[in-house]
């Protein structure tokens, strides 16, 4: 299987393979790559300073998130992972909403009920994120089934990592999608690690994309640090799904530059030399060279954009930090649509405890 690559690490590219994107699109993509990088820097710092409890860094994987989600329509559905904040930004989730969740404050859409980085935003069809690995794949399949049942032209895109391919739900989801020929794209961000374990401990298969063949549909491997290749693969397969061509598995080959989370120390299980090698393949670096070569970005514009993104991230974080924690009563709402007697009683007891 040949890996789709358009834009190489040195900024050279194959003009024959360039996807159909306007200059405006390309600059917008770049802005979002920068935004995700700046957001990650800020998120890590906030956690290290003890201002938020937990953070998950997705540095290195920006091209997978932005490239794939860029190929979606606004009415499409996404089931992301906790490492896909770029998908939220790109689809228009306000940054304040993202930070409110990290601070688990009174304005948090999740009402302070979830560990940081577990976003969800109904308005933009971004389904709430869980921690257990691969559970969302079967949900995505159900949504794709419902779409087909209702005869809508909507595609479901779900993200997951290389570790997820070891779970039962990877198998049952892809199997289900293949049997019913559903309008869905499975995007595996193969970032080489599931916490401490390298991908070779997840599978003896030559690659992940080829696993699709056993479910009766196409698998395709792309350079996950090449946003043009990611976009092209996603666009082609999303279009295919939309026109009734069934599911596809995309494997984006990328690298998790940081630890698994703020609770992880990657120096225990991987060499710095490996990290240095991947630094040279950075998805943002090469896209910047590409845009400059095409005359779409100058050094000065780049610096200005980086500063703007950094300011926006920092200002929004400060705003979210000012918001009070959620009210006690939010612990009891939304367990069910209506509160059953036993929860009413427990809430009542808690309120009395406070007086």
């Amino acid at each position: 299987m040949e890996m789709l690559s358009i834009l190489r690490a040195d900024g050279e590219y194959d003009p024959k393979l360039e996807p159909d994107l306007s200059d405006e699109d390309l600059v917008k993509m770049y802005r979002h790559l920068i935004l995700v990088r700046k957001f990650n820097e800020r998120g890590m710092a906030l956690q290290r300073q003890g201002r938020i409890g937990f953070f998950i860094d997705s540095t290195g994987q920006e091209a997978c998130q932005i490239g794939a989600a860029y190929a979606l329509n606004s009415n499409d559905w996404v089931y992301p992972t906790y490492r896909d904040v770029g998908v939220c930004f790109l689809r228009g989730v306000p940054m304040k909403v993202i930070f409110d969740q990290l601070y688990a404050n009174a304005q948090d859409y999740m009402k302070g009920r979830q560990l940081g980085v577990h976003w969800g935003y109904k308005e933009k069809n971004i389904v709430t994120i869980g921690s257990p690995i691969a559970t969302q794949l079967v949900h995505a399949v159900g949504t794709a089934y419902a779409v087909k049942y209702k005869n809508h032209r909507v595609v479901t895109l779900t993200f997951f990592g290389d570790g997820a391919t070891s779970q039962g739900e990877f198998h049952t989801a892809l199997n289900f999608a293949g049997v019913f020929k559903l309008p869905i794209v499975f995007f595996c961000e193969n970032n080489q690690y599931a916490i401490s374990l390298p991908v070779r401990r997840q599978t003896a298969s030559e690659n992940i994309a080829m696993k699709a063949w056993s479910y009766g549909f196409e698998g395709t491997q792309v350079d996950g640090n090449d946003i043009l290749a990611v976009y092209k693969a996603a666009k082609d397969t999303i279009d295919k799904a939309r026109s009734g061509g069934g599911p596809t598995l995309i494997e984006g080959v990328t690298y998790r530059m940081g630890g698994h989370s703020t609770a992880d120390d990657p120096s225990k299980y991987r060499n710095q030399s490996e990290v240095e090698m991947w630094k040279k393949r950075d998805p943002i670096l090469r896209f910047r060279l590409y845009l400059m070569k095409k005359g779409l970005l100058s050094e000065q514009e780049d610096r200005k954009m980086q500063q703007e993104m950094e300011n926006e991230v920092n200002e929004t974080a400060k705003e979210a930090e000012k918001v009070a924690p959620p009210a006690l009563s939010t612990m009891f709402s939304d367990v069910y649509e209506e509160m059953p007697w036993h929860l009413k009683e427990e809430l009542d007891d808690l309120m009395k405890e406070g007086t």
Partner: protein
Amino acid sequence: MAQLNLVQTVNQTLREEMRRNPDVVILGEDVGRNGGVFRATEGLMDEFGQERVIDTPLAEDAIVGAAIGMALYGLHPVAEIQFLDFIYPAFNQIVSELAKMRYRSGGQFPTHVVIRSPYGGGVKGGHYHSQSTEAYFIHTPGLYVVTPSTPYDAKGLLLTSMRMHDPVLFLEPKRIYRTLKEEVPEEDYTVPLGKARLVRAGSDITLVSWGAMVHTCKAAVDLAQNEGISVELIDLRSLLPFDLEAILTSVKKTGRLVVAHEATRIGGFGGEIAAQASERVIDYLKAPIMRVAGFDTPFPYALENIYLPPPERILNTIRKVAHY
């Protein structure tokens, strides 16, 4: 009005609701062409088509997981898990996803899914076709757990469950699928969750049960009556939420409480009922609260009729409590 047994009632109720609501879909193993291994979905594929009555690949986690994704997109899926004993590959999907999605998303993503599953012993099914493990699910915030013991209640509770905006585990006591028939009204009616049914009025002892065991309890109540002990029998019908008020009202009158279930005793739901009652009406109690339950062994095959509490075992406990 038609005379229907419990499984016919389930079938008829699904059919009626599917005619009313085009968003209702059924999915599970063998539910389509075969009509379900207990025939609960018989004829539905012929009427509603294979896109709506979906024979899925053999994977419980995908059945429940897909039902979640369907619900998020606006369908009202009714998933069948062939036997409750086979539900565990979907356990994570049920307890961590289905039951938690509304809460964890701040109310953005409710999951109105009904999972129907036959459960309980007495059908010579062995360990993998007999267990009553409702307590695992009652222990799950975000999930409702329901079990009818009559055809009438099966319809009313199933319609309520299918119209909820929350997930419901609808447990069908398969031992009594075909053992009793009664008149089931053809019109639309619902039985609310959290309301118990008074099966027999009595004055000496309150006996609480659910599912197929309600009928064993009725036999025990008759035996007790012969000995001059008047037992009030309550069928909980819905286990979460459960009708504590009905239990307490009865216990205040009788001063004695026995809970009977097929499930194993330790960690069984009978313990919760006993604790709730002792916390609230201890001053009314004239005897210890006692439980009659399945033994704390795996479910046996050859000896299942010994394992399942027979009326005589319930009677023995009634006697102990009555003569304490």
